[in-house]
């Protein structure tokens, strides 16, 4: 009897293609994607970040520091005069600025306290990467200073007259007071909340896919959609009647998630999400574009799938894969180069970039136009697919 029941269970499993996809293909895809995405996580991403050098000092020591930096971080991008905008928009991760008196200051016995080397970073740069880069710059500068001072000290042991009294003076070896790092002014503070809310908000908004697809299937299977069609309800009206409520739901999701960030997180002891100084129009535009893309995808999937099993398997799978690829689950900056390129094909990544631009970089409408346009284009394509299949499936 047990054998017969086990056989029944196995046959049921084997014949449930979508269940098998969820059981086997999902984890396989996840292993592949996450392994590739996290490939470089233990070899710090600081090495591969795109940066630019602004050297205002022509001294030898400045060049030595830059050579050392280049050894550790690769070559800088070609001369970009207007690097400020590039850094602010996140296209460059940081600019390494060497002030004109760097060489003089680093070799001076007495430090002036003026900053001579600074990292100016993308406002959205990950906190650990920011700290690591700053520490590394400090270390290289201090090493350089130590070498210079040591050379001076050795020379003092076999002195020409002028240096005879030098070693008696107190000398600070650390170049800490000469080095600094700062995020390019954005109006809001980069915290984990500031980074996490956009990511999970975009992820959550895309989850209307499963809900919409299942409801659509229910209507289709019971014949309600065919009945509406036979009553002369146009396809466009059926599509809009589905899209508009979910647009409102996405709006509520956004309001709720932002409210959690602004008000609930501080109550729980976390950082507060700051919306001070953000461009509200740009935020609305990005949210609308994300919502349209999510609803478009939901409508297309709902029109393409045939069964609840398909909807239940395909919807969440597509969402999770888009999130894994798109930088929601694994920050894009820790991914290897080709995964970062791949991320740029994920609509969730477009949404995330748009949200980060508004919340971290203080972008205005123009600043979010590209991700918003990509999302709207994606939404249009999906809605075209939905319309093409909708009528056929409605019947």
């Amino acid at each position, binding site marked *: 009897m047990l054998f017969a029941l086990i056989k029944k269970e196995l046959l049921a499993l084997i014949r449930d293609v979508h269940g098998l996809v969820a059981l086997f293909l999902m984890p396989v895809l996840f292993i592949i994607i996450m392994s590739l995405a996290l490939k470089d996580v233990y070899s710090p991403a600081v090495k591969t970040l795109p940066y630019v050098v602004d050297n205002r000092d022509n001294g030898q020591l400045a060049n030595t520091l830059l050579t050392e930096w280049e050894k550790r971080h690769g070559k800088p991008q070609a001369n970009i005069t207007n690097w400020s905008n590039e850094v602010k928009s996140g296209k460059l991760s940081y600019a390494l600025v060497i002030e004109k008196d760097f060489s003089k200051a680093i070799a001076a016995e007495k430090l002036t306290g003026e900053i001579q080397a600074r990292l100016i970073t993308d406002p959205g740069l990950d906190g650990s990467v920011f700290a690591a880069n700053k520490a590394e710059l400090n270390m290289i500068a201090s090493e350089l200073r130590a070498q210079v001072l040591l050379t001076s000290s050795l020379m003092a042991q076999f002195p020409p007259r002028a240096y005879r009294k030098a070693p008696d003076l107190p000398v600070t070896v650390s170049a800490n007071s000469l080095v600094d790092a700062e995020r390019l002014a954005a109006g809001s503070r980069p915290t984990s909340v500031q980074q996490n809310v956009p990511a999970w908000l975009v992820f959550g908004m895309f989850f209307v896919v499963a809900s919409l697809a299942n409801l659509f299937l*229910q209507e289709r299977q019971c014949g309600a959609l065919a009945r*509406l069609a036979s009553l002369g309800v146009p396809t466009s009206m059926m599509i809009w009647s589905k899209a508009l409520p979910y647009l409102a739901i996405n709006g509520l999701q956004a309001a709720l998630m932002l409210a959690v960030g602004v008000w609930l997180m501080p109550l729980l002891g976390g950082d507060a999400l700051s919306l001070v100084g953000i461009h509200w129009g740009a935020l609305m535009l990005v949210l609308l574009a994300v919502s349209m893309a999510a609803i478009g995808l939901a409508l297309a999937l709902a029109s393409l799938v045939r069964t609840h099993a398909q909807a239940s398997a395909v919807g969440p799978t597509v969402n999770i894969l888009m999130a894994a690829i798109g930088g929601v689950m694994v920050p894009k900056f820790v991914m290897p180069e080709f995964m970062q390129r791949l991320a740029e094909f994920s609509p969730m990544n477009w949404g995330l970039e748009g949200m980060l631009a508004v919340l971290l970089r203080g972008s205005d409408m123009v600043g979010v136009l590209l991700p918003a346009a990509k999302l709207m284009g994606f939404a249009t394509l999906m809605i075209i697919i939905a319309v093409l299949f909708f009528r056929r499936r409605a019947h």
Partner: protein
Amino acid sequence: MLLIRNLSYCYPHTEKPALAGVSLNAERGQILGLLGPNGAGKTTLISHLSGILQVQQGDISIDGVPLAVARHNSPTRIAVAPQEYAFYPMLTVTENLECFAAAGGLGGDRKRQRIGECLAFSQLERFAQVRAERLSGGLKRRLNLAIALLPEPELILLDEPTVGVDPQSRAFLLDAVKTLANNGAAVIYTSHYMEEIEAIANRVIIIDDGKVLRDGTLNELLNDGVAHVRLAVEGVIATQLRVLLGRFGSVESIGEEWRVMLAPGQTPTALLAAEEEVGGRLRHAEFGRNNLEQLFMTLTRRSLRD
């Protein structure tokens, strides 16, 4: 009112047509019973009338106007009550009626009036605020019908409207359908229950393999049927009796009894005389024409369908 001429339809990627030269008509105030086994082409025919399928070959017209034009001008002239429960289970009875009334273009006082009338017609007033998913099978059927009636259609297609309901609900639904026809609507009623068709249809069409096999009033169809003799005989071995009866027509064994579909020119008197000649003792005999079910089975053959 409805006239279909030489309608043929072939689904994509299939060679065998689902409909092959179907012609029929339906009149106001009449119920047309549409009979056919599974896969006969009933659903394809209904799909044409409800606008789901476009005409590939042949003509369908409503009062002389091509169906597509008639549907475009007034899609609610034709209503379909499909076999499925084609409504929203999570909505109440009233909410469902409101939704489909609006979809059918009703609004304001007219909408409220029609919802009230349809609730009353289907005797669903007591359940107006009950979610559709909590209704019994019979009540769901009544809601399905009520939704179809909202826009006051002139032609109503009822696809097996009594499947899975208790006898009381069935009787109610049959009376309701008769009332619709009496009020002037043309009704096309498909069912697998022959006694329902016999009880309410003015005309019957039997369809199979996409073709109309019979079209006529119930009397015409039954008179057209083959005469048969059903008998039980003792004193003759079965094989001998089968050979003897076979001379008079096709023979079928039903338990201990035999049924002979008389061939043209053969009479029951001659058959009984022949049986007595070989020493048979007649225990029971019955003579008559086919009922609708027998005619249906004869025409569509007895092989099981998909």
